[in-house]
């Protein structure tokens, strides 16, 4: 189970860091606020959602696209794990 969690976090981290790079932001930590650092913008959030849906085969409803689920890499991982364990 821990291995799967780490794998999920790793994949999310990779995607987020790549998105960050496109905005010229480096060294994004797992706990850092993606909103405050400007890594996610109003377009990026939907690219991220599409990635999560395709990569982890989950369905994300519009009402779930809220701050608390996408605050940081750790938040996103927690959100995805909850969906995977259903």
């Amino acid at each position, binding site marked *: 189970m821990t291995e799967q969690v780490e794998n999920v976090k790793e994949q999310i981290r990779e995607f987020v860091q790549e998105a960050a*790079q*496109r*905005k*010229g*932001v*480096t060294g994004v930590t797992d706990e850092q606020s993606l*909103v*405050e650092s*400007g890594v*996610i*913008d*109003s*377009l990026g*959030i*939907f690219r991220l959602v599409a990635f999560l849906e395709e990569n982890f085969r989950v369905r994300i409803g*519009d*009402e*779930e*696209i*809220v*701050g608390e689920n*996408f605050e940081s890499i750790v938040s996103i991982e927690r959100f995805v794990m909850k969906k995977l364990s259903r």
Partner: protein
Amino acid sequence: MAYVLQQLLSASAKRYPEKSAVCARGKALTYGELEQQSNQLAQLLQARGLRKGDRVGLYFPKSVESLVAMFGVLKAGGVYVPLDPQAPAERIGYIVDNCQVKVLITTGDRLHALDPAMMRLVEFAILVSAAGNGSFERAMPWGAMAEYPSTAPDEESITTDLAYILYTSGSTGRPKGVMLTHQNALTFVQWCADTFKVTSEDNLSNHAPLHFDLSVFDVYNSVEAGATLHLVTEDMTLFPASLANFIRTRQISIWYSVPSALVLLLLHGNLRAEDLPRLRIVLFAGEVFAMKYLRQLAELLPQVELYNLYGPTETNVCTYHKVDRDRLQGMTTLPIGRACGNTEVFAVGENDEIVTAGSGKEGELYVRGPGVTPGYWADVEKTNKACLRNRFQKHFEEKMYRTGDIVTLSEDGEYCYVGRRDSMVKSRGYRIELGEIEAALLSHPGVREAAALAIPDEEVGARLRAVVALHNLGTLSTKELQQHCATRIPKYMIPEEIELRDSLPKTSTVKLDRVQLAAAQPQPA
């Protein structure tokens, strides 16, 4: 009748002292509190040496303090300069230096990140939040104003004095400061008050950042009417579901934003008319609204009046078009409409002739009237290029502003936007000079040539790409260039993709062949 903006607040504070003026992040200020605190800030600023016309930078995330700061500076006779709280420090430093900001109202971490060399003329800073201000000695906490009297200083500003400066993207590489007077703002505010009939029962949202002129309506028309302003903070703009919830729970009655925000709400916000009984007016401006999305929005919210507002920062809004749902079906583009009250517009076509209604001719749109900017801060050359002597005025000397927008004029007197005269583009409503992106890329020593391109996009207006020729191919990556850009220009201006080559195509006159570059770009599906 108010002749300076701060009188709008004083009047409403007299009439509605207990009413909620503004709320954000769980905090709210009544009109009485907003009046009192802005008076205290004004007293502090004057006591500390702020003189009439001095510039005060506002550089912190949106909060109720933002309004205290705006009114406080105006009451002290100063000129406020709203700064993008998310812009790179280098760009902010440039602006602070460019208009000789004397006082900076900011956060500790932002103050710390600014280059001291650009801060030479800043006399002191006021911190809305403390953390980490080690590098600047002359900083005082926001609470320091509590020591000062809560009566307003004597009013010495007049209507033609500057109220604020808004910096916009500049084609030659650096942002330029659009000067706006009290009269400029009040001309617009008056027209809005007459047209939208804002009352003290209204709840206005403020979606736009405070350095964008859409916010001028939100703040000053809300205050003018004694209504309540609900600030949409930066984080909320990213999550359509949260935003829709906000509109519902705050019972927003008037919403104003760029079309991109409305499209996001439409596609992902699960908007339902029955949830929004108080919403009566939706205004949008800043970019072209794709007809297919506008039709969906109009159908989804049948009880709401929809208005397309048009105008560059230099004139705030100068034309408007009220959406007629019956005509929407057959329309390919939404008109920008006709001139607002107390503003005149006209299009100048070939042979220097004014375009007449229904002629089918195209012309560049010009604006005259009290809503028009006196020009760009400390840039006589740019000012003279855009604010021209009105050669069509036979009776006295006056200026007219050339918008750079090409338009046509329909039979029934409505203007329609056709395109730009130059290389300014809109992406999500943000005004972007491709030249500024190119300058940022060129500032990297490894870059020999750079061309920025806007790929048309139905959802956001334009997506940004760049083609760059390096001195030595292989020495720089796209990633590194994007990082470099992030130190100079705001994130929304960074090209999403950068193609690296060893040279760029040239025309026969040795200029960059933009046509060829554009043609070679992959088009949207």
